[in-house]
């Protein structure tokens, strides 16, 4: 555990020593609130909830999280610092978990910094703050899912751009699986259980059901499973690459 913690600390400090972290948070904050007001018509629709704010989270994460996760392992492998990391008294699993947790905490911080919108909606009316809390939790869990997948794919290559593209690709698949366009394609020929299974793999369906204010165990379990499996795959890939 101490190994995980040490890696996490080193990584977190690393984020703030480069401008990258600030750029990431800056873009996230600007886009999240601009989308809410302009695309989501937050003010014009006159409803005291944050639905127009959270609707765009999956799409923001789709591009921003891979940007964050692409360097997790690709960078270490390119610069060769992975060799150094592996000589330290931490297991691969601890290193993977530590790096992931650092990135997750960082993303959670970015999400948390959107709190002015929460103040705004409470000023404008009396929103259901339980729903907002649930949606924030859901958003952070979804970010964790994106991160874990991105971290895993970042270990596949030494090239950060390739890592980014791979992560976006997989994330798009995971997102779109819940959209009606995709489901309709399958619904035409596949039996209902298969369609349901595809839908159940989607970030969107799980995030949407949390963000309406109900924390269903299945949604939490989905994200936990996704993070767990992706990180485990991450360690396997690292072991494989070590063998190269």
């Amino acid at each position: 555990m101490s190994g995980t913690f040490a890696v996490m600390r080193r990584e977190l400090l690393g984020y703030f020593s480069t401008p990258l972290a600030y750029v990431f948070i800056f873009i996230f904050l600007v886009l999240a609130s601009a989308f809410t007001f302009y695309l989501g018509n937050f003010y014009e629709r006159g409803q005291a909830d944050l639905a127009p704010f959270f609707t765009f989270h999956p799409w923001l994460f789709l591009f921003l999280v891979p940007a964050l996760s692409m360097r997790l392992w690709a960078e270490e492998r390119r610069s060769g610092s992975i060799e150094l990391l592996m000589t330290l008294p931490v297991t691969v699993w601890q290193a993977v978990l530590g790096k992931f947790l650092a990135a997750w905490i960082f993303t959670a911080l970015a999400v948390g910094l959107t709190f002015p919108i929460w103040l705004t909606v409470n000023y404008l009316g009396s929103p259901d703050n339980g729903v907002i809390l649930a949606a924030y939790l859901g958003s952070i869990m979804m970010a964790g899912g994106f991160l874990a997948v991105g971290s895993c794919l970042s270990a596949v290559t030494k090239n950060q751009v390739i890592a980014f593209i791979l992560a976006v690709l997989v994330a798009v698949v995971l997102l779109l699986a819940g959209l009606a366009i995709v489901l309709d394609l399958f619904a035409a020929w596949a039996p209902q259980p298969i369609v349901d299974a595809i839908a159940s793999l989607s970030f969107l369906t799980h995030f949407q059901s949390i963000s309406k204010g109900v924390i269903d165990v299945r949604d939490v379990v989905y994200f936990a499973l996704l993070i767990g499996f992706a990180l485990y795959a991450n360690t396997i890939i690292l072991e494989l690459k070590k063998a190269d």
Partner: protein
Amino acid sequence: MNTAGRRRIGYSTLVVLLLVFVAAVMASNTLLKGMRLDLTENNLYTLSPGTKSLLAGLDEPINLYLFFSDEETADIPFIRTYEVRVRELLEEMAASSNGMLRLEVVDPEPFSEEEDRATQFGLQPVNLGTLGENVFFGLAGTNGVGDEAAIPFLQPDKEPFLEYDVARMIYSLAHPEKPVIGLLAGVPMSGGFDPTAGRPSSPWVITQQVRQLFEVRTLPSSLESIDADVDVLWLVHPSNLDEKTLYAIDQFVLRGGRALIFVDPLAEIASAAAGPSGFGAANGSNLDRLFDAWGVEFSADQVVVDNVYALSVNTGFGTRPVRHIGLAGLDAQAMDQEDVITAGLETINVGTAGHFTDADEDGGVTLTPLLTSSPEAALMPAARFQFLADPGDLLNDFSPTGERYVLAARLEGPIKSAFPDGPPGDDEAADEDEADAEQNGAEDEDAAPEEAAEAEASAADSDGADEEGEGTDAGGHLASAENVNVVLVGDVDVLSDRLWVQRQSFLGQQLITAFASNGDFVTNALDNLSGSAELIGLRSRATYSRPFTTVEALRREADAKFRATEQRLQAELDETERRLSELQSQRDDATSVLMTPEQQAEIQRFLDQQVRIRQELRAVRRNLDRSIEQLGTTLKVLNIGVMPLGLTLLTLLVFHLRRRHRKGQR
């Protein structure tokens, strides 16, 4: 192991991992159903226990079709918001029905088959939006044997009762047979002989209306027991009921039978029915024998008079209408808006009503008011109304007590039998068993005459759903019940035609128009009582929509501020237009076609002024929205700009400090 071998194992592990992941997600989806935490403030997504047990008890599949015009409502957000709420509630219901409830969302596009289907179900499109699109937003349902039910349009303002309305619909599909209402009336509600006209009179409108919705079974005024298949006992004006009948009613209620009871200190309709003299009929009615046991008190000789809700009556031809404080036109404020029976009704007219009080000190039963008087009310002896020549005289003796009297109420909670010693008319046996009855609240089999045996048999018949009684023994006499569902109304005249409908003869046809909601009140009460016991308890729920209150307040404020200006300018404009037309009419068109230059200049001046004022008016209109827009812009800027800006400054500061720190180290 060599590298290639390890690789193979590694890759296959990855593939297996992916498959295990998919399997685990699917397994959790089916295994972990129903474990959830509803964080919404009003537990919007948690069905009430009543609905849940109704859904769990479904044993025949029921199909629900939610018709919603998707495209037509694209720019009507409030309808869309409500549609999400409705759909999620229906999905939630379907999820807790063990697959018995199937939901299908249908988009009835214009000229499509779906639109025909919607029309077949009796759904009505409503004109909404700026372009007046025809919007379908209704719910239809079918059961296995082809019965249909529908809510033609789901009104957003009926949201507090959405769950009740849907649950009621599902219940009616699951129990398609019409509920049986046992009517026991001391007034000729089903028609009788009209002594004034000397010919048979037609049934009251209320009776006809109820007959359309329920199976009404008229019960004799003296009976030994009430059939078990009677869902609701509708007891109107019970005067001089004999012991056996009272016992039958008592046992019916204790067995979990529901009752809607109308009593009155002075039923004017009863004296009207008895003849022009007004003698020979019992004007007052009470059920004190049962009320005492239930812990309720009714003012059988006192009438509630109300100065706020008083109706005006004509005392004779050519005279001015007089306020009659004994007649009340109750409005929404006098009704419980949380209760499905009275919520949304507009007016209920009552005549010389009595009031109920909760006489049960230990709080066994709860008396929930449905109709109350205004605080400006008082009590007057019923005799005062008997030969009242001028209702205006009543006001002379009127001094309000400040109390709100309960004119109608729900009675719920545990009650005891009014016949603790068992059935009447069998004194010997009752005496013998008195001690026994007191000890365990039960009766012995020997004491029970035949109707008790019948009651037992019928209790066994009544599918077990409503058997709430306890303290029963083999004889079937019930001494107490855990929970009763009774609605009490302190007025009988509320049912009479003259207080709520107008009959007109039109080409030999009777036209009936309602001017008060008395009929809805009664059908709502019967409908509610005849539903499952769980449904009765379903109260209104909090609403889902949460508007921007700050913006609304701003809008109101701006509205008030600018309306004055607008009115002033409008007056100015009217004046200008008036003068302009005056001037134009002064033109002597008949003699001269041309205007003098002065006239022309004057007209031009007026026209300019008119344009200026119109512009100013538009500016006022714009101003009305400006403060709201300004707030929106401010919030946009704050939200989009402030955080990133602060972050940038912070970053610069941090980097600057770090550099200085490093320089200092060097």
